[in-house]
């Protein structure tokens, strides 16, 4: 029995496989080649927000055949801390990025709010260039368009996903394939009356 089947048997709303590990690996390899051309002769810094981008960052780094460095940041989750406090970094970059070629590595871009925030925040630190790559692009609710999203792994349907680093409250991240989540079985998080 696979991990997904065990979770499903335990009642977790893990649906069918949307992308197999092989399909993801093949696309990540292609992205690595695209980025190797874009950053030839440079020494880019790949920056990923924790935690759901961690698996993609690790695979993309190994697929990128140019010298590069890695760093991670962590944003406080939406709604944490005092009300109206806004986004804050739980972990900032380890070193300055002024003059560096920075590539933000995202797992999913949806509204663009997170990537928009990171873009505004990083631009103030004066990198030489700032671009972004995402494994999954879900553009249907895009609110922020002025984001430097130059490379996309897969444009996916308007569904929720688990696996390959994506999870819910720390669960499901280790699933090697990308699964659909049966969203109807998740609680509606707001009073939409």
């Amino acid at each position, binding site marked *: 029995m696979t991990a997904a089947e065990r979770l499903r048997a335990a009642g977790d709303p893990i649906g069918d496989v949307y992308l197999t590990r092989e399909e993801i690996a093949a696309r990540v390899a292609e992205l690595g080649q695209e980025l190797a051309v874009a950053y030839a002769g440079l020494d880019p810094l790949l920056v990923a927000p924790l935690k759901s981008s961690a698996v993609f960052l690790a695979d993309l780094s190994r697929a990128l055949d140019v010298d590069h460095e890695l760093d991670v940041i962590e944003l406080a989750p939406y709604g944490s801390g005092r009300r109206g406090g806004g986004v804050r970094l739980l972990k900032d970059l380890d070193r300055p990025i002024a003059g560096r070629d920075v590539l933000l590595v995202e797992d999913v871009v949806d509204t663009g709010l997170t990537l928009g925030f990171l873009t505004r925040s990083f631009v103030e630190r004066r990198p030489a260039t700032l671009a972004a790559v995402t494994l999954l692009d879900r553009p249907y609710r895009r609110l922020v368009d002025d984001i430097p999203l130059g490379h996309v792994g897969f444009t996916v349907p308007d569904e*929720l996903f688990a696996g390959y680093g994506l999870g819910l409250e720390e669960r499901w991240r280790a699933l090697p394939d990308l699964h659909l989540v049966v969203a109807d079985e998740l609680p509606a998080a707001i009073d939409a009356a």
Partner: protein
Amino acid sequence: MPETWRRATATADPAGRASTGPSEADATLGTVRESPTETSPFQAYRGSEPPRFVNGAERECAQILDWYGIPWEYEPRSFVLRRDAQGRVTSAFTPDFYLPDQDLYIEVTVMKQSLVTRKNRKLREVRHLYPDVRIKLFYRRDIERLAQRYRLRIAS
């Protein structure tokens, strides 16, 4: 020629309607607006008067925008769709949010998707009469997805 009016000048509506203009939600849901005193101070709100949200979905949207520091206004403009022979406004559309930095209006509806035909028709009229205006309609399902993503941290 298509026309709009800003909230501050809405009292000029010759139909003599409420000074803030009718919203789709008011008309279709019969909901009661929140008192301004119930709303928290928003950091990114750019309106002149406290927003008076109709429902939790609107408030949730405002909080998400505010969290990410995206400047927003609440119902700043009504788009006139039709007038009668006397020039009185007989149909208008007032999107819930306006993002000035994106030049984008957002309409939030909590109606079930099967019941939004009238709203979709109005939206098509706005897009026909005001082709340069960008409006996105967020359905109940969209808001629930956003809330799931941002609150429950799925696929963030």
